[in-house]
């Protein structure tokens, strides 16, 4: 026995060491590589700009810090949008200076308008494209403002800026793609398999009945975050190679199938929960039997999702479980039909038995749809292993939804910030005015679309101070001793490494980005350096003043217009109300996509300005989905040939209620639904043991009525605070997507 112990502990130690190594490889090694690549790229960019005698090597270095990212796809994507936006901005700047430079006021007005326009545009797109819009806005300031004093030079300034930016991008992209590259396509693959495993785990816990409705908000947010992350990673990875571009339609289909399967899971679990709650109020043994029978079927389904208690980990696993799921689904309707007679309880009266079998039918239908959606989802994942699956059409994808008014207000805020700074500059004749104006443009536009612009600008001020201290130390303490490029690079390397390192640590990332932006600028790297301490300090003070003005613009000028959650809620309600008329399939499509789009806004960059509203609005979105689907189920049942049809007044009343649930028409709708249900049941033969198409409509009406009478659902729909709204989580992914989605840099 004693000999087994050392052997055991060695194996254990080895495993621990392997785990530690894997952990280190997955996190710290990535960070170290990132730091190494960034420092190298910055020095290469500096060297190239100096060798080509370009005027402002700092711009190339700043560009390196802005486009640097741990994965090459992100670098190339951001670099692509940066150079495109710089070119657009350069053309706009040259045009602006050529036409308006004589009239300073109209010049500044036009500049503000351009910035407002670009900020508005940025609100309409996501990810790197938004960054491109913002950059096209303030590049004009960077090029045109210094040219006011010397309009003849504007073309040279524009060419110089574009060249420097290009040098920075090319050196960063080449080093990221060639030197021990980390590919975004690998992260994308991991993200897809994680999204599949997450939904599979969720489906298993729903099917086994372990899932609690209180978890719905967390799940709704997590799903939206996953979808955003998938879309952003797809965008970055498609810049890496044609591989991901070829897979693009499949990824869209996967995301579509994921949201549809999730909707069904959500609907099923809450419908079961509602029937349980109804049981607690008025017990009906027959209904209890129905619930238990269907619960048994759902559990079988749950076991198929994870054969041998193991969740599928790859698309090959998913392809393996697909036939089993499809085979089970084929038998499902037959088995439900066989179980149906067991629902009726001889001791019950006729009406209770009828209600119970109606509930059974409605839930069995839901379960069948749920399994269908889940099979679609599984096969969309399994398709990644099949080459011929590329031929299938693309999914719709998650199109971003933007509130036009909100976007215009964001643009207005950017424009007002620039206007204010311009007036201040004209009125005081401040010598640092031009550079402060540039910085105001940067902070106003970059941060105008963020949920917390003031905090972001405050973080920027901290980075200005830190970068100022670093720059003074390096410029006046160390650089004078460096007499050639190699020694200069050696002096700079540790400081550049520090900037890169704090960028990659999530806690200090925001400040790190700012330091990366300002350190090279304040260093003032030029072919012939000027050692002017007062000038550097003045530059720091000017930057701080500009930040303070940007905060003033955010606080004092347009603060009232910043909360758009009411509008968001109304657009959600509109989706539900619209399900009451029009083409059923089209409305279902619009409902699923529209609401999911709005949900991604809640977790995305353009979310509500008050983060505490997020869980409430998420709950509202989920309640809208439920209501919409319930209404559509009623309308679908009413459209069957045997059905008696619905009264138009009922649908109108429902539409009126859903368009603004705070009004008093809820009780009226419930009463009308019940009256219609009873009328239908009276007019038709009531044989609880036989399942007839005639029962579908009353069953659907009953589900809708139960939903409308559900107090928790109603509180969710009105986006009122409820107890479980507080436990909505901030998952680590939320920060991740913000880090990817939020544009940084100058």
């Amino acid at each position: 026995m004693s000999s087994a112990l050392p052997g055991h502990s060695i194996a254990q130690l080895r495993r621990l060491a392997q785990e530690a190594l894997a952990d280190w490889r997955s996190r710290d090694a990535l960070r170290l590589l990132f730091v190494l690549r960034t420092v190298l790229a910055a020095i290469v960019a500096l060297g190239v700009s100096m060798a080509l005698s370009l005027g402002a090597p700092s711009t190339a270095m700043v560009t390196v810090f802005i486009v640097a990212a741990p994965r090459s796809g992100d670098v190339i994507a951001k670099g692509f949008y940066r150079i495109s936006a710089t070119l657009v901005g350069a053309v706009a700047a040259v045009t602006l200076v050529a036409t308006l430079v004589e009239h300073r006021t109209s010049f500044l007005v036009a500049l503000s308008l351009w910035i407002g326009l670009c900020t508005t545009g940025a609100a309409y797109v996501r990810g790197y494209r938004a960054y491109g819009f913002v950059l096209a806005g303030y590049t004009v300031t960077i090029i045109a403002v210094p040219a006011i004093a010397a309009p003849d030079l504007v073309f040279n300034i524009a060419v110089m800026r574009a060249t420097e930016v290009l040098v920075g991008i090319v050196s960063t992209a080449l080093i990221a793609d060639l030197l021990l590259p980390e590919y975004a396509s690998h992260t994308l693959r991991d993200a897809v398999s994680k999204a599949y495993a997450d939904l599979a785990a969720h489906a298993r816990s729903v099917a086994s009945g372990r899932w609690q409705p209180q978890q719905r908000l967390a799940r709704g947010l997590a799903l939206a975050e996953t979808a955003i992350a998938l879309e952003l990673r797809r965008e970055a990875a498609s810049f890496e190679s044609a591989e991901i571009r070829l897979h693009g339609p499949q990824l869209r289909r996967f995301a579509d199938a994921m949201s549809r399967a999730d909707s069904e899971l959500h609907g099923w679990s809450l419908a079961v929960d509602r029937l349980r709650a109804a049981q607690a109020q008025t017990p009906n043994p027959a209904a209890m039997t129905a619930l238990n029978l269907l619960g048994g079927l759902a559990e079988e389904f749950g076991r198929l999702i994870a054969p041998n208690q193991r969740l599928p980990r790859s698309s090959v696993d998913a392809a393996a479980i697909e036939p089993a799921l499809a085979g089970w689904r084929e038998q499902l309707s037959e088995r439900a039909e066989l179980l149906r007679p067991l629902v009726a309880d001889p001791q019950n009266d006729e009406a209770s038995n009828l209600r119970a079998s109606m509930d059974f039918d409605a839930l069995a239908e839901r379960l069948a749809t749920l399994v269908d959606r889940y099979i679609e989802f599984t096969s969309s994942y399994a398709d990644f292993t099949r080459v011929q699956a590329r031929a299938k059409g693309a999914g719709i994808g998650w199109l971003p939804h933007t509130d036009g008014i909100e976007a215009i207000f964001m643009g207005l805020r950017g424009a007002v910030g620039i206007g204010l700074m311009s007036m201040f500059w004209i009125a005081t004749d401040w010598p640092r005015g031009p550079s402060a104006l540039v910085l105001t443009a940067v902070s106003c536009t970059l941060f105008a679309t963020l949920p917390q612009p003031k905090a972001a600008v405050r973080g920027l001020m901290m980075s200005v101070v830190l970068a100022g201290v670093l720059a003074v130390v390096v410029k006046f303490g160390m650089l004078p001793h460096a007499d050639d490029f190699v020694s200069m690079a050696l002096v700079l390397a540790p400081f550049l490494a520090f900037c890169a390192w704090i960028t990659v640590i999530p806690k200090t990332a925001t400040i790190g980005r700012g330091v990366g932006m300002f350190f090279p600028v304040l260093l003032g790297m030029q072919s012939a350096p000027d050692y002017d301490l007062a000038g550097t300090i003045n530059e720091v003070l000017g930057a701080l003043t500009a930040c303070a003005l940007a905060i003033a613009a955010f606080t004092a000028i347009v603060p009232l217009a910043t909360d758009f959650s009411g509008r968001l809620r109304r657009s959600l309600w509109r989706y539900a109300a619209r399900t009451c008329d029009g083409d059923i399939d089209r409305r279902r499509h619009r409902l699923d996509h529209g609401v999911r789009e709005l949900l991604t806004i809640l977790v995305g960059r353009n979310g509500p300005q008050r983060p505490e509203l997020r869980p409430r609005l998420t709950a509202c979105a989920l309640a809208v989905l439920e209501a919409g689907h319930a209404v559509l189920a009623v309308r679908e049942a009413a459209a069957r040939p045997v059905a008696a049809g619905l009264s138009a007044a009922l649908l109108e009343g429902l539409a009126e209620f859903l368009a603004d649930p705070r009004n008093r028409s809820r009780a009226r709708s419930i009463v009308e639904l019940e009256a219609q249900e009873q009328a239908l049941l009276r007019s038709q033969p009531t044989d609880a043991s036989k399942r007839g198409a005639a029962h579908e409509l009353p069953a659907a009406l009953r589900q809708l009525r139960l939903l409308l009478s559900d107090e928790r659902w109603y509180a969710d729909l009105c986006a009122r605070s409820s107890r479980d709204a507080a436990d909505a989580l901030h998952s680590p992914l939320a920060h991740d997507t913000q880090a990817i989605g939020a544009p940084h840099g100058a």
Partner: protein
Amino acid sequence: MAPELAFDGVLFPSLLPVFLISALIFWPLETLLTRAGIYRWLWHPSLARLSLFILLFAGLALARGFSGV
């Protein structure tokens, strides 16, 4: 080959159109190679991609230089 092209008084390097044409050829070529699965057999796909582009660009530039256009 003239070193620079004049366009409305603004000078552009004459290699710029060659670069753009190489990029236009490279894009579909890369898609074809990916479809064929070539990159799966290579040690460093990005390096191979870059080398391919440089070959294309340099080849076109030299061909243009020789033809004297």
